[in-house]
């Protein structure tokens, strides 16, 4: 009997002094699947639309929350606890906004509570993100939607998680669909920002990407991978079916291959690739590259939650390099593996076996090696699949940075095993992108008062002292003070522009040509004006225009890169 059930039965018979009990959580049952709409939000719009397609493809009703804006923030703040970080306010506010809209359309609160639920990620780490579900419930209750369901997907339990909502059934197709969502959302976002900064016809990138989105959503919604055992002759499948683990594993591998390397998926990617490559770009435009890092939500969202920062940066003439959710997933896997080493040899309760207890020691070592191998394989597989999607989409999107490299770079400043928030990622990424000259400026976005991320900033002050030419700006996204935040970004961006300009002028000077010659050559060679034309990145040069000038110079001189 679960605590939920025990509480329910006990409370019905209690008569003593009243004591507070947390509201009982209503479950989502399999019978409700056809009538309950799952609400999704909290990621980039592309990820969310893909998620909706996967849910719909698996037979669920699914809708997206509105993009959080100032009104969402104020609503979330109104109904939530004081002093929460802004992602909680924005998300609960967007949820309330959506529900109020339903109510305005004539639906009663009872119907809303019965027919909708919110699906979100959960965690059990030291950061308060793990308590967000309670915050959403509190805000919903205060707003009058008592009993509204918030269903958590434990990020550290992955797709194998045991959910409290049996209405959500995690099939292999569903899980692999979600995996594709993560890859596609990241890569398409990256491409959009890479291309839009140089598009010749304003708005063309967004139009093309929208068409690609539709195509990909259709695929995610409609595609069903065949079942291995349906395709096998009975004499082969029958004996294999007796072993549940072997059956599940084989089927998973088979389906994964079809989902991620199957004809249907590759075809849709190819169509997208062609469309995107049709956008005309002018790489001679001087754009400082701004790498985005920070706290998971603040660095990812394209909303009022970070002062519409990406739009703002683009309007200010920057090329935004967004952060991939994939980096976070790779971090979770790598960090789980790193955390194992200090406990190597201890049992599951972290007890040290006696020196003479060789049997226990052996068992502990085997358990360690099994888990390590599984996690290492998971990391390898995830990265490989991610990079395959990049390859299929033109090979120009940014690849995942090896986690060990990031952890190693952060080591002198930030203990890699320290937990909470982005862990060593913020420090590691800042150093990585600066050292490898992959951007002109690093902008770190984090919610006001974010516990781990604020502390990272404290450490970054030592990092910036160590790397003299680094341009690093942390911005706390509180939901208020947009003008101030934009002003601070402009301030740092001015520096980054100067850096990019100096780099560009140096590059141009070393070619001995003028920019008109370069442009004229590029116009004559139309492939140079295509997004998927690969301009080699020269060590020590971050800017696209500077690299392009040097490359065209080589081409003009008849040299190949």
């Amino acid at each position, binding site marked *: 009997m679960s*605590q939920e059930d025990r509480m329910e039965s006990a*409370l019905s*018979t*209690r008569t*003593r*002094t009243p*004591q*507070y009990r*947390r509201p009982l*959580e209503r479950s989502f049952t399999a019978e409700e699947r056809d009538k309950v709409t799952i609400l999704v939000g909290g990621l980039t719009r592309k990820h969310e639309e893909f998620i909706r397609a996967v849910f719909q493809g698996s037979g669920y009703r699914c809708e997206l929350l509105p993009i959080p804006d*100032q009104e969402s*923030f*104020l609503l979330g*703040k*109104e109904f939530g*606890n004081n*002093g929460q*970080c802004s992602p909680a306010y924005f998300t609960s506010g967007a949820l309330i906004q959506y529900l109020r809209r339903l109510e305005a359309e004539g639906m009663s609160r009872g119907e809303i509570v019965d027919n909708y639920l919110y699906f979100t990620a959960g965690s*059990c*780490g*030291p950061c*308060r993100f793990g*308590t967000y579900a*309670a915050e959403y419930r*509190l805000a919903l209750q*205060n707003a*009058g939607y008592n009993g509204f369901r918030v269903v958590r997907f434990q990020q550290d339990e992955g797709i194998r998680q045991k959910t409290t909502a049996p209405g959500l059934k995690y099939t292999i197709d569903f899980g692999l669909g979600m995996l594709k969502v993560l890859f596609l959302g990241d890569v398409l976002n990256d491409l959009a920002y890479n291309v839009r900064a140089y598009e010749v016809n304003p708005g063309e990138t967004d139009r093309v990407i929208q068409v690609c989105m539709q195509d990909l959503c259709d695929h995610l919604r409609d595609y069903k991978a065949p079942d291995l055992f349906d395709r096998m002759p009975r004499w082969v499948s029958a004996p294999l079916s007796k072993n549940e683990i072997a059956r599940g594993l084989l089927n998973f591998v088979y389906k994964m291959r079809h989902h991620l390397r199957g004809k249907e998926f590759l075809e849709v990617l190819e169509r997208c690739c062609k469309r995107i490559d049709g956008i005309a770009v002018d790489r001679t435009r001087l754009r400082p590259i701004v790498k985005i890092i920070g706290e998971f939500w603040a660095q990812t969202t394209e909303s009022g939650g970070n002062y519409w920062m990406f739009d703002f940066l683009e309007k200010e003439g920057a090329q935004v390099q967004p952060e991939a959710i994939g980096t976070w997933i790779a971090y979770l896997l790598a960090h789980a593996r790193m955390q194992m080493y*200090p406990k190597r040899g*201890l049992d599951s309760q*972290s*007890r*040290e076996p006696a020196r003479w207890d060789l049997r226990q020691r052996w068992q502990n070592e085997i358990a360690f090696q099994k888990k390590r191998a599984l996690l290492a394989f998971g990391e390898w597989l995830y990265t490989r699949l991610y990079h395959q999607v990049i390859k299929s989409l033109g090979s120009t999107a940014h690849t995942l940075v090896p986690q060990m490299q990031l952890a190693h770079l952060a080591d002198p400043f930030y*203990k890699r*095993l*320290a*937990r*909470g*928030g982005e862990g060593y990622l913020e420090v590691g990424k800042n150093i990585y992108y600066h050292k490898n000259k992959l951007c002109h400026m690093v902008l770190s976005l984090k919610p*006001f008062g*974010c*516990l*781990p991320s604020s*502390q990272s900033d*404290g450490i970054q*002050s*030592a*990092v910036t*002292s160590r790397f003299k*030419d680094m341009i690093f700006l942390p911005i*706390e996204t*509180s939901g*208020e*003070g947009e003008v*101030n935040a*934009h*002003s*601070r970004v402009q*301030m740092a961006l*001015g*520096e980054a522009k100067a850096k990019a300009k100096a780099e560009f002028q140096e590059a141009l000077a070393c070619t001995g040509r003028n920019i008109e010659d370069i442009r004229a050559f590029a116009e004559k060679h139309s492939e140079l004006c295509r997004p998927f034309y690969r301009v080699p990145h020269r060590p020590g040069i971050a800017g696209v225009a500077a690299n392009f000038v040097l490359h065209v110079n080589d081409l003009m001189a008849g040299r190949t890169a």
Partner: protein
Amino acid sequence: MFVPKFRAGIDVGSTTVKAVVIDAETESVLWKDYRRHETRQIETLLDFLQRMEAEAGISPENCRVFMTGVGGNMLADPIGAKFVQEVLAAALMVERHCPEAASFVEIGGQDAKIVILRKDPETGRIKKVPSMNDKCAGGTGAVIDKISKKLGIPLEGLSQLRYAGIRIHPVAGKCGVFAETDINSLQKQGIPAEELMASLFEAFVLQNLRVLARGHTLLPHVLLLGGPNAFIPGMREAWQHNIRIRWEERGVEIPAGATVEELIRAPQDAEYFGALGAAEFGKEEEAEVGHYLGLTQLKNLYLGRSEGQSRGGLGIPALVGSEEEVQTFLKEYAPPPFVPPIFKPGDTARGFIGVDGGSTSTKAVLLSLEGEVLARAYQLSKGNPIEDTIEILEKLRRQIENQGAQIEVLGAATTGYAKDTLRDVICADVALVETVAHTKSALHYYGAPDAIVDVGGQDIKLMILKDGRVKDFKLNTQCSAGNGYFLQAISEGFGFQVEQFADVAFTARKMPVFPYGCAVFLQADIASFQGQGWKPNEILAGLAAVLPKNVWLYIAKIPNLPELGTRFILQGGTQNNLAAVKAQVDFINQRFAGSGLKPEITVHKHAGEAGAIGAAFEAMTLWQQGRKTSFIGLDAVRNIQYQTTVGEETRCHFCKNHCLRTFIDIGAENGNGASGNGRRRLIVATCEKGTVEDLDAMKAIQAGLDAAREASPNLLEYAGREIWKYHPSEKTAPKTKISRQTAEKREKIRIGIPRVLGMYGYAPLFHCYFESLGVLSGNIVYSDFTNEEMFRVGSNRGSIDPCYPSKLALAHIHNLLFEKHRRKPLDCIFFPMFDVLRSPLNIRASNACPTTALTPEVVRAAFTKERDLFVENGVIYLDPLLDLSKPDLLARQMFAAWDAILKLSKAENLRAIHSGYDALDRYESDIQRKAREILDRLEEECGVGIVLLGRPYHHDPGVNLGIPEELQKRGYPIFSQATLPMDRDLLERLFGEEVKEGIISDPMDVGDVWKHTFSANSSNKLWAAKFTARHPNLIAVELSNFKCGHDAPIYATIEKIIETSGTPYFAFKDIDENKPTGSIKLRVETIDYFLKLYRKKLAEG
């Protein structure tokens, strides 16, 4: 044809506009001006441009314009200007014209910036490392303006203010609201305005050096830019003084022959650097960039013919939609004008005087025996509460005596911030805490309301009643302080007296939506709304609309108003502003929509004087009980002579704090005192001991305090003191043989440990670990206990602004490195990162807070940023990541950290860890044993004890702000969440039934109230709340620090746990580095008042 003969640079800041016109050929400045725009940015810009056209000859045919500043971004487009970010503009100017500068500091109206200029040896490029305050702004021009206005310093007087040689008092600098709170309290103690302003400069400079400098040292030359730096000599002196100290501390070499004044200076035209820099920027731009378009579009914007940029067109309907609506509202809600009773010559007005010495105003009433107001007076505070009281009682007197009647005072009472001083000065019968005074007043006139909303200048008080008895009260934290005064200050900033506020706001038909909460954030939003084209009347309306949200959503956290009842009383001086009332009425009505109920909202007919009336009622009660008044009489009040002294001669030397006191000598020096009893001295001090001068008198006070402490022990103080005293027990001492050399090394090694954060929970573990290994107990050196001076001196290397307990760590490491180490060298500083804590609870994870866990790494960064100060001092800094919940893992982690230094064997290391845990267990058992004794006594005596629901670091006397002591003094034993007894019989009594019923699995289960049990200390706080809610002799006071991210998610749950059971719940939230004595006192006294009632109820069974 366009011939760019001129370049104009315009800096539209949040409080001023600066503009220059430059001859493009000669680069000479042809025209310049600087003016405060009094929040009329567009109008001022328009005026400037018209003058620039007329006086300098600029026109669309011959001029390019470059704009900067917070308003520049919004106003550039209408005139065709190119926007240049302000720091870029200033930096460009500095780079070109002051190449010797290595850094500059610019203080603007809303923000402060520090820019470090470093030449990159490789590229030769001047790298600018800019830092700008985030939304929590302390050191800015607007705050200086607001506070100087409050202190009655005229604008032109700012240029006379000094810092050098002036006495400095502690003022919080991190936030304008905190600073204002401190200044208020110091002002009431009679500290002169020039000392307060100098203290403000000190606070701002220190805050900027602590946080904004992000740990960088500002190397010579340092330029001081911006209006405040340019115009206020005291501001410049504060920078010079504090930067010089850092140079000395950090060994910065000063160029030979140069003086500090030359090296840290405001350059000529410092206030124009933004405008000049913008124009300088234009020099490099293409000829067409910034082509001046003339005034047409700007005029349209000003006249409202076009909306401002971005969201200027958005907004919501304003407070009223039409003039008719205004009239209807006024008819219903405007309180009737006060018609005092008429006296005939020779009549005697007998009654009771109530004086309310508030934070921003003083009020007084004369109340008849029937409770009718015979006379009333209200005046804004001039700074000195005694002077204010003398004047206001005179006003009261004139109202009666001008009719030929006379007054007979039967009793007098005081209330408000200055109530104690005023009681002593006029010998009033009682000083009544203001929450109670306000409640009494509302109850008298309006029977049994359900809620009383009192909004004063500084505080918001909300009293929730049931059947005419106060059930609960809510007070604002300092974070939303200044609401009433805030409205007044903004109104005056727009050029309207506060009395005109409503008239102006009611002319708006649309208004911008301000987020509610902190006044500092609102201030920042005003600037951006103005830039979007919102007019002053619309902004005032928008600000009035924030007030009810602050009351109900921010402070009370009650979005569902109908659950309180239907009768609401609005009172307090701010309710004289009918725009605020309209907003409140609208808000309450809106919250009742759809509930089927109709609220009944009444504005108190003496809204501003409600507190004074309540005090007068208290005096009446005493008189009715037969008490003869001790009031000195109105004649004596008129003739009060007093002298206020604050100086070295008033410093208290009864303890090591050496606090500055205020002496108020009443009566003439010849002994013919106003009261007729000779000259007497009142002493305003920070603690009781300081209220006397004589040692014997102090000893008597101390004895009284000691007796009270003995009767009502404070376990926070006890635990915070005892935790450092544990040693290994004999049975756990390691017995490993080690070489003599190693033994000697261990005996000699000296280890410094900061007395901060988690050490308040785990010190015995580490102390005994080291001692067990042979480190001498005396060589385990703790930093000093937290004190203000330590924080002031030691926290300058910070680069972020986390919670106060985390920031304190810098000061403790500084203390170890620069005091303990210098006195006798340390070999290591050990400041472990606590990753996982141990917990007695049945929870899913026992993580530590990431802020505290990562603090040691932040400290390392701060002390190694420019130079590795640990290496330079020969000290090893060790901050291993530790899991305290798993002894074997901890042993490994400690071994990895210490083996190289202590030459450990794994076996002895493990035994030392066990020895440490044994000590920790003994410490916890000792505390719990003592707690049990106290609790048993409470049960026997039917007393009330207070559980302070905080975190282990609240045992740190420097973090808990002395709140436990203040409560203890009033006769309540104090427990903390970490010091509650856990004896089986007690737990069985409190939780046994719920375990049997299956609601919880065991007494240490908190799953019934909170599902996400991942944070050890949060779970513990929840458990302690459950314990308190179930124990009839305990009540809860929650302590929480500003920015405590682990507390925020459980605020509502803690409150519900306590309140559902009917147990009183109070809270001190947003605790930070400043100690707002006045507001702490108000809360403590209010708590005491309610607990007395609760104790009575308890005793009655």
